[in-house]
């Protein structure tokens, strides 16, 4: 379990630091590596420590993403994209609700023998990952319409499947997001075709 938590954290750090300037990238990776080691050395590599590592990872994702945007200077662009687009707000709300909901369930399930670790991972990590895929898909759909809309649809459908008992809210909103996401991507694709290759 501890190996899984450490592997998950390392994978996430590798992902959000990828493509950054070598100083920022290497320093962040080394700091997290040190933190993971200290955490395991102090508390032991038991299930509770592993869960604590995953919770620290999940709660830190928004800060990791904003830190990355600061490093790349894209924070303003991302905020502007969301602010000027009602679909962006809907996507942010949908993904944000999944993140908050998933994290709350994850924290509640940690240490709960009846629900167990598997439930915590599916609802917490699964919901979180799906929400991230959805947000990234929306963001990249302006530059890469096809890839972006596929990611948007996959993330949206995954969230709907994970929280299937809330289908009466998620299904209609998911259909709206996917349909308008496709229309938006087609608009960007047409615009790109008109402009021709760079």
């Amino acid at each position, binding site marked *: 379990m501890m190996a899984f938590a450490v592997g998950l*954290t390392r994978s996430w750090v590798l992902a959000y630091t990828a493509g950054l300037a070598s100083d920022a990238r290497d*320093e*962040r990776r*080394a*700091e*997290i*590596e*040190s*933190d993971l*080691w*200290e*955490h395991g*050395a*102090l508390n032991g590599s038991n299930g509770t420590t592993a869960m*604590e590592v995953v*919770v*620290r*990872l*999940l*709660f*830190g*994702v*928004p*800060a*990791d993403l*904003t*830190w990355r945007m600061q490093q790349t200077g894209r924070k303003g662009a991302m905020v502007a994209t969301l602010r000027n687009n009602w679909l962006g707000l809907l996507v942010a709300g949908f993904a944000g609700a999944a993140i908050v909901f998933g994290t709350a369930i994850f924290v509640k399930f940690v240490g709960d023998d009846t629900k167990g670790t598997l439930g915590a991972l599916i609802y917490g990590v699964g919901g979180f990952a799906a929400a991230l895929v959805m947000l990234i898909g929306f963001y990249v759909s302006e530059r890469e319409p096809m890839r972006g809309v596929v990611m948007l649809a996959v993330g949206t459908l995954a969230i709907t499947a994970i929280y299937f008992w809330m289908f009466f809210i998620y299904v209609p909103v998911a259909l709206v997001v996917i349909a308008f996401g496709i229309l938006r991507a087609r608009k960007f694709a047409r615009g790109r075709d008109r402009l021709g290759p760079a």
Partner: protein
Amino acid sequence: MRRKQDAVLPIELSILEAAIELLRRGTGEFYGFLIAKEMRDRDAARLLTSHGTLYKALDRMEKAGLLTSRWEDPMVAANEGRPRRRWYRVTAAGEAALAKERAPAPSTRLEGTLAPS
């Protein structure tokens, strides 16, 4: 939310307070996990501060001049069989920022002055 110039965020205040407490106990420098543990113990919190929140705050504080940092000698870490630590230290500006935040608000002092004796 846009940050005000020179404003110290709650997480930064918490880091400064924990660091000063460590300093009082003879630990002049700290690394990420140590300060996270100290903050949890001080606040009697259930969880440690998340990786993202903690290291983003430390990065921001260093850029703002509230902290300085240095990487540990790789040989020291290798001899102890662990990854290198990044050691942080509170600067004079960091101590001043903490003192400023702890100082009572001007309105409080005014009320105190005007209060009947």
